């Protein structure tokens, strides 16, 4: 039971953490439940389709179909996360000022929830299709103890969803004034981690050079295979032995999205007077 549970947990974990962050980042926004549910539903049905066509995808495009598909999914998610953050760079300041008044937050509304819903859908799609293949491979095996199998599945699901929920409720403890700053940072790191992962797929397909193996090796400090290592990998893209291209994509994503956030935010601030902040800022 435990081996099954562990595998299921690993597959569910990443998607659950993404959902936790998205829910926290959209706190107080009207219809966010519907958007996230739509993302989940779309991702799950997509996962079944992808798992069903796994063979064809793997064989497509001279054998690198799977890699290109995964990279496309990851880079689309990165673009959506980036777009959310750029939007927040523009409007987050006002939101922070208005925070405390959840009613106002709801009205402040047109946050790019579709972007977050797409991110949820893509995370579920990627991890879900692997989960479906794994479940299929077990079901197709000869000697299956159904009770043991169902127990492992339930335990793994509960563990993964529980970790996502713990992250969400942990984030909710942050005062509303600071919550969106924290979620924007988390989303930035999440995007950088996904970009690095996408780059690794393109290296695997031999479409990008790796630019060196083992830029550093911290596996003795924090093994990537351990549960804390896995959580950090999913959250901020922790890699114990990264290749050069992963570091490059990670850093480039941080710089590009970070710059766009500041640039768009500043442009907006210069155009009209900034709302008065409750806490003084040393630079202003």
């Amino acid at each position: 039971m435990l081996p099954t549970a562990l595998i299921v947990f690993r597959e569910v974990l990443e998607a659950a953490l993404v959902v936790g962050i998205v829910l926290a980042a959209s706190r107080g926004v009207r219809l966010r439940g519907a958007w996230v549910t739509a993302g989940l539903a779309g991702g799950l049905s997509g996962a079944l389709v992808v798992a069903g066509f796994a063979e064809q995808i793997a064989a497509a495009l001279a054998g690198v179909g799977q890699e290109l598909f995964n990279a496309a999914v990851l880079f689309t998610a990165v673009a959506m996360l980036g777009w959310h953050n750029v939007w927040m760079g523009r409007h987050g300041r006002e939101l922070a000022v208005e925070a405390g008044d959840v009613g106002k937050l709801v009205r402040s509304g047109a946050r790019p929830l579709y972007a977050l819903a797409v991110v949820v859908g893509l995370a579920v799609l990627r991890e879900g299709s692997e989960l479906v293949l794994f479940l299929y491979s077990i079901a197709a095996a000869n000697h299956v103890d159904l009770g043991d199998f169902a127990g492992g599945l339930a335990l793994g699901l509960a563990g993964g969803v529980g970790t996502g929920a713990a992250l969400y409720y942990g984030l909710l403890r942050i005062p509303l004034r600071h919550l969106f700053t924290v979620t924007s940072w988390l989303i930035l790191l999440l995007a950088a981690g996904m970009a690095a992962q996408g780059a690794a797929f393109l290296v695997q397909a031999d479409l990008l050079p790796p630019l060196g193996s083992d830029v550093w090796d911290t596996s003795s400090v924090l093994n990537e295979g351990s549960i804390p290592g896995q959580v950090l990998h999913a959250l901020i893209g922790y890699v114990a032995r990264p290749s050069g291209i992963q570091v490059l994509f990670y850093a480039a994503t941080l710089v590009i999205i970070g710059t766009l956030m500041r640039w768009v935010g500043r442009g907006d601030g210069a155009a009209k007077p900034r709302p008065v902040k409750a806490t003084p800022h040393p630079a202003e």
Partner: protein
Amino acid sequence: MRYWSGVAFLAAGLLLPALSLARAEDPSFPITIKDHRFEPAELQVPAGVKVKLVIRNSDPTPEEFESRTLHREKVIPGGGEGTVFVGPLGAGTYDFFGDFNPKTAQGRLIAK
């Protein structure tokens, strides 16, 4: 980031035909998955050059070839075959495993 991925895919489209030529030159190593185990479970590859792992799954069920140290992740359908490029690697040991049967499917690459 959007532009970067665009550039990457554009490059991918242009390079794909050229790469199929280049691929023939990379040293190739076969790995077979059988009864949820890798054969060979320990594989020596040259360090400092790109190598091609050709993974054949002779089990009827799908397996995912995965390695955290190599950053590789590829589903190999039951009865199917998949190619994974690794390296150029620094000398050292790199673990890999079958994500769907990690209890038995364990292996390592030794780059020398």
